[in-house]
């Protein structure tokens, strides 16, 4: 087995694939990249058993073979090379020899057959989406997903596909984001929960990409195919909470405000909030929004007044400032609207402008009950 490949081209692919590999693996073979050579096609794979990603590279070769090469060692070596052709030769003594312009490097390899095989999807459904739209959907939602091991379904992003459009939902029970694209449709109704790790990889790879991504899915796995790569992952098993039920239907109190102004005030005031609850208080009366925070333990206190556009009854509501900050940061509009009903019901944050045709973002945040 022998092939010649450009060093930077290979490094670029390996760095993407390296994101799949866990820092510590129970299965030592997973510390390797799998190299599968079939003449001028080289397929490199990385896996953590849950997620497997493979990329196909064009190389110069006339041979075939399959070896697993230590990922860390290979990456560290490649990073140091300027652009140049590298020759990989699998030697008889269980080592791979890499020849560069500078010299030779031998790495011990494992038999490629030891590497776990990615599952093949049986009877999948298929939807095609532009890479950038998928990346946007992920980045709009993933920050709201939880980390609770007891509620694994909430640690992922819920994909809800239908002939009407695609919906992506994430929640940690305190905040919730629903991102809808009515301009992209699926051929049939499907729902599945994607774990965070492969989504973060996809977000990184697909941002700004105009290429199409083919998503294939069944009850247990999903496969994303794009350009020269494919990513197969196991889905999170379980039933996603009925998120629609927690979106308050009637919200008579509507606040419209400049997003940046609001965000900056929240950030400043929250510095003075209690260090564990991060609680800030919004007091809205007339066209004035009063944002205040207090840390009684240290006698720290802050208060800001903002002019806003408000329709509804005067009200007071408490929020965790970190949630508000995360949500406001994630939005990119000039103005936002915050709809509320009562101090113990979720507030609904939506962008007023800057959305594409068919794009919808709804963010929910549960309040902190003020008790004083």
């Amino acid at each position: 087995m022998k092939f010649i490949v450009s060093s930077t081209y290979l490094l670029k692919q390996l760095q993407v694939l390296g994101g799949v590999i866990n820092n510590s693996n129970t299965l030592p073979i997973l510390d390797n990249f799998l190299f599968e050579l079939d003449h001028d096609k080289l397929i490199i794979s990385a896996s953590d058993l849950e997620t497997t990603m493979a990329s196909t590279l064009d190389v110069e070769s006339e041979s075939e073979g399959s070896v697993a090469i230590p990922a860390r060692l290979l990456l560290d070596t490649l990073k140091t090379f300027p652009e140049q052709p590298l020759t990989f030769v699998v030697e008889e003594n269980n080592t791979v020899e890499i020849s560069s312009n500078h010299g030779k490097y031998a790495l011990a390899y494992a038999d490629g057959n030891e590497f776990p095989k990615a599952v093949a999807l049986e009877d999948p459904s298929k939807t095609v989406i532009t890479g950038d739209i998928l990346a946007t959907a992920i980045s709009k939602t993933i920050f709201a997903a939880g980390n609770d091991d007891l509620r694994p379904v909430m640690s992922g992003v819920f994909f809800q596909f239908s002939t009407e459009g695609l919906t992506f939902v994430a929640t940690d029970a305190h905040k919730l984001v629903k991102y809808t694209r009515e301009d992209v449709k699926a051929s049939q109704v499907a729902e599945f929960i994607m774990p965070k790790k492969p989504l973060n990889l996809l977000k990184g790879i697909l941002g700004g990409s105009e290429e199409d991504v083919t998503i294939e899915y069944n009850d247990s796995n999903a496969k994303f195919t794009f350009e020269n790569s494919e990513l197969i992952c196991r889905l999170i098993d379980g039933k996603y909470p009925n998120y629609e039920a927690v979106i308050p239907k009637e919200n008579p109190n509507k606040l419209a405000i400049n997003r940046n102004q609001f965000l900056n005030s929240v950030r400043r005031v929250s510095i003075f909030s209690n260090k564990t609850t991060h609680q800030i208080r919004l007091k809205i009366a007339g066209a004035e929004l009063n944002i205040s925070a207090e840390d009684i333990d240290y006698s720290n206190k802050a208060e800001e007044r903002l002019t806003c556009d408000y329709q509804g009854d005067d009200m007071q509501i408490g929020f965790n400032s970190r949630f508000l900050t995360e949500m406001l940061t994630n939005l990119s509009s000039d103005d936002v609207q915050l709809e509320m009903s009562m101090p113990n019901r979720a507030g609904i944050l939506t962008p007023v402008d800057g959305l594409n045709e068919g794009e919808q973002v709804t963010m929910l945040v549960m309040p902190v009950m003020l008790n004083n």
Partner: protein
Amino acid sequence: MRDELPIRKIIHVDMDAFYASVEQLDNPELIGKPIAVGGGGKRGVISAASYEARKFGVKSAMAGNLAIKLCPELIFVNHHFERYTEISKQIRRIFYDYTDLVEPLSLDEAYLDVTENKKGNPSASLIAKEIRTRIFNEVGLTASAGISINKFIAKIASDYNKPNGQKTVNPEEVIPFLEALEIRKFYGIGKVTAEKMYQKGIFTGLDLKQKSLDYLEKNFGKSGHLYYYIVRGIHNSEVKPNRIRKSLAAERTFNENLSSEIFMLEKLDHIAEEVTKRLSKSNVAGKTVTLKIKYSDFTLQTRSKTLPYYIKDKNIILETAKDLLYQEKLNNSVRLLGISLSNLNTENKPKKEDDKSVSVQLKFEF
């Protein structure tokens, strides 16, 4: 102050040698022996003495070394205040079975206003008897009681048949009782005042009664005013329950029975308004909302919901009450609706936390 009030029925319950009795209860070896709680140290002062010890003249507030001279067999035991508090609470729970108007004076005595009581028993003497019996059966200690028309006389009366006895001073006996009473037994008259009274020739209630209001005020200041009325059986000090509020409610009986939830919503709004008013008046908030429904056939139903945080906001109370109303179909037409809030933030709250605002991050109800 002199407005004619309906005659009240006040009971003063006083535990017999409380600390000492508790010690004997917990340590049966001590039963029947002269014991003193506290006062064991070099300069210790006795907090309480058992009746066996009192026979020798050992009294509370007596120095330990003096007591041992009076009663060489005297056994000194240490305080167990937690235990006294625990038993005191147990006793108070018995009181609350009869009335909410309980004014604890200390761990071992309390005033009860039983003019209107939960048992509907018109006889304060019988209630006192029942309470004492229950204390004995449930706690194992004896108590004495005084029953009369005001706190002052009830307190004096409880001393009459001590230990393990009670005395009732009926309304018609009040005046003769007070007239015959030794002046030093009057509430608020200690050694010094008694001495002063003696010098002015006042030895009994009758003597005191001969003096004019002016005279008493001139000689005894503000207290003179009190003495003047007290000896005439007038002492309107109410039984002030300083107990922690456990719940707060408002309810409404309708002129006509309501059969549809739709008509009840408006009523609930008013009731929630009232509850909110009372909450802000008492400055409390609660977690559990209970909806009380009394049907036209007088059957009673309660439905309650506990929220994860304290509420005092009218809208939230109303919403929760509405949820409870729609939770299940009504059995019949309704004559009364009530909303109560319990699990109040006054309960079991350590003092330190009082000023601290408690905030709760709410979650979606998945």
